[in-house]
């Protein structure tokens, strides 16, 4: 076992035991247990003692045996009425998980029938041969695709698009760096645009749902997409300033052919219909998680998506999200979240300062931790902050949710910050230093914009 993992294991166990050894006034036994689980999960997630999805599974398991009505511990405390174990387990079928399942099936089927690559080919065509606009094109296409597919898969696909371009550019041309960096950045940015763009969105939306705050697919886009578009342009401008292309023309060698068979056509139609139904939720009123069952059903019943494909779905990501959601449930139900919020003198800080604090902590943490993990750790506290009335103002609960979700996604300073960053650095074209410089600037600008949005944008459209 590596040193850091071993350290994590020891710290995790110690962290788990501490809340059980002390008596915190005003916190139920269940609250103490929830704190143990929270600390254990946070440490395991940070040190990656075990894979992050297995920490999520462990969270659900511990909640069931320690906190549920059917578990091993009988909770007699008046302040906690035990939750049915099904509530922790049911997070695996949470509407947002079903929405993601639909998104995963759609995305994997798109890869299977080369829909993603052919789309990128078509979308890139209008951008010509000027490196500046090619980079813009690459970013726009990456962002659009990653809004509906996983950021990682989109990055991998776009890397296969840019490798031939990189091979043809002079080794000393800074364009190589801007091309190689623009892909992961655009993939990270694109992920914020829709609810299914990236897993942290799911964790936040699920937590908001539990507070009775429903978010339509299109509404999320209205809240988050303007930021994605502005940041895409900012990132483009920054990359061109930092690494201006030396060559004046680049040739995109876009070969490929649309697959033309019954199954491929089925996918094209189902993909288009699903996206249209998602975006137009406010017109027909069918929830996005229900719409998500449509591609799953149609693609499997037409054998477009087969048994092997179902097996290859990234199930561990769904566990990861479910673990995050159920951690939130445990913290809320046991009163732990309220206790944490109540024990800090927040009232010293103003509304904006508080939101900024959450945003900054989220973006900093998320540079080192998984984005989903960051969102999972912060959203229960954020929600308590809003429900306990410490932050007020219109729709404060939604705003704190957006701040957390968006801030985690704009963490792209290091190769370890997100899988897309790791892929880009692996090509060897980008130095970590280049990523740190550009990523920090993008993160800082995004943070400022997010804070401005809490004041000047969201209050007016919510």
């Amino acid at each position, binding site marked *: 076992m590596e040193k850091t993992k071993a350290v994590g294991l020891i710290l995790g166990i110690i962290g788990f035991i501490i809340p059980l050894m002390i008596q915190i006034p005003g916190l139920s036994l269940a609250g103490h247990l929830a704190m143990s689980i929270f600390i254990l999960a946070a440490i395991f997630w940070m040190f990656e003692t075990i894979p992050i999805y297995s920490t999520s599974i462990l969270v659900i398991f511990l909640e069931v045996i320690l906190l549920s009505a059917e578990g091993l511990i009988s909770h007699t405390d008046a302040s906690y009425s035990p939750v049915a174990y099904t509530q922790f387990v049911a997070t695996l079928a949470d509407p947002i998980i079903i929405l993601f399942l639909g998104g995963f099936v759609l995305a994997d089927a798109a890869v299977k029938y080369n829909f993603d690559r052919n789309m990128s080919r078509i979308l890139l065509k209008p951008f010509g041969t000027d490196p500046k606009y090619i980079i813009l094109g690459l970013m726009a296409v990456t962002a659009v695709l990653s809004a509906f597919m*996983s950021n990682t*898969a989109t990055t991998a696909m776009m890397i296969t698009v840019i490798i031939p371009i990189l091979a043809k550019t002079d080794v000393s041309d800074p364009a190589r760096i801007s091309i190689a960096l623009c892909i992961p950045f655009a993939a990270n940015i694109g992920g914020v645009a829709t609810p299914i763009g990236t897993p942290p969105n799911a964790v936040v939306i699920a937590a908001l749902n539990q507070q009775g705050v429903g978010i339509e697919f299109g509404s999320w886009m209205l809240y988050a997409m303007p930021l994605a578009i502005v940041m895409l342009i900012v990132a483009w401008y920054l990359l061109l300033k930092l690494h201006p292309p030396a060559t004046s023309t680049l040739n995109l060698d876009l070969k490929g052919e649309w697959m033309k068979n019954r199954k491929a056509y089925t996918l094209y139609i189902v993909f288009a219909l699903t996206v249209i139904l998602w975006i137009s939720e406010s017109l027909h009123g069918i929830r996005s998680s229900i719409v998500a069952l449509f591609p799953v059903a149609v693609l499997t019943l037409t054998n477009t998506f087969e048994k092997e494909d179902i097996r*290859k779905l990234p199930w561990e*990501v769904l566990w990861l999200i479910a673990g995050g959601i159920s951690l939130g449930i445990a913290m809320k139900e046991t009163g732990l979240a309220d206790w944490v919020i109540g024990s800090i003198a927040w009232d010293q800080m103003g509304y904006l300062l508080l939101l900024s604090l959450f945003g900054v902590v989220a973006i900093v943490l998320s540079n080192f931790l998984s984005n989903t993990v960051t969102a999972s750790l912060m959203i229960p506290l954020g929600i308590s902050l809003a429900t306990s009335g410490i932050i007020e103002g219109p729709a404060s609960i939604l705003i704190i949710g957006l701040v957390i979700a968006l801030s985690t996604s704009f963490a792209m300073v290091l190769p370890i910050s997100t*899988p897309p960053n790791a*892929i880009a650095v692996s090509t060897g074209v980008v130095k970590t230093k280049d990523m740190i410089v550009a990523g920090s600037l993008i993160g800082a600008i995004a943070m400022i914009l997010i804070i401005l949005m809490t004041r000047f944008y969201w209050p007016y459209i919510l």
Partner: protein
Amino acid sequence: MKPKIYILVVEDEPEVLDSIVRDIAEFEEYFEIEMADTAEEAEQIIQEILDNEHMIGLILCDHVLPGKNGVDLLIEMQKSERTKPTKKVLITGQAGLEETVKAVNEANLKHYIAKPWEKKELVNITRTLLTDFVIESVKDPLKYMQVLDAQRLAEEIRTGRHITDS
């Protein structure tokens, strides 16, 4: 300790051995290169590598060797579970048709390089076969992107889902 991937070069003439190793030096940063001048020595090295939980990604093997010949060594490796995935290449001037056919049929020979070879050819074959090996046998292909066929490794990440959003 992370498992390393080895390239094993088996050749009895020191100058030839040197020149093979020199030609594939660009892989040295990411792969361990081991040399042997007989099949028997190679077997010993293979055993050591496997005992330490490492893998052999590629063997470049001469045919005519003192003692056991190259084709027999490759066939033996093919029969053993842990060296079956190893990509096998003959570099030789003297293997006859019969032995070559045997190597193709029984050792799943991936390539036959006739001496004298060109550096570019050797490097390309090494890159292609190591990429195959990494795709088939390594969970996280990311760290080899820089030295191997990045296009194919990225494609593998796209379709194989080794890495997912987190």
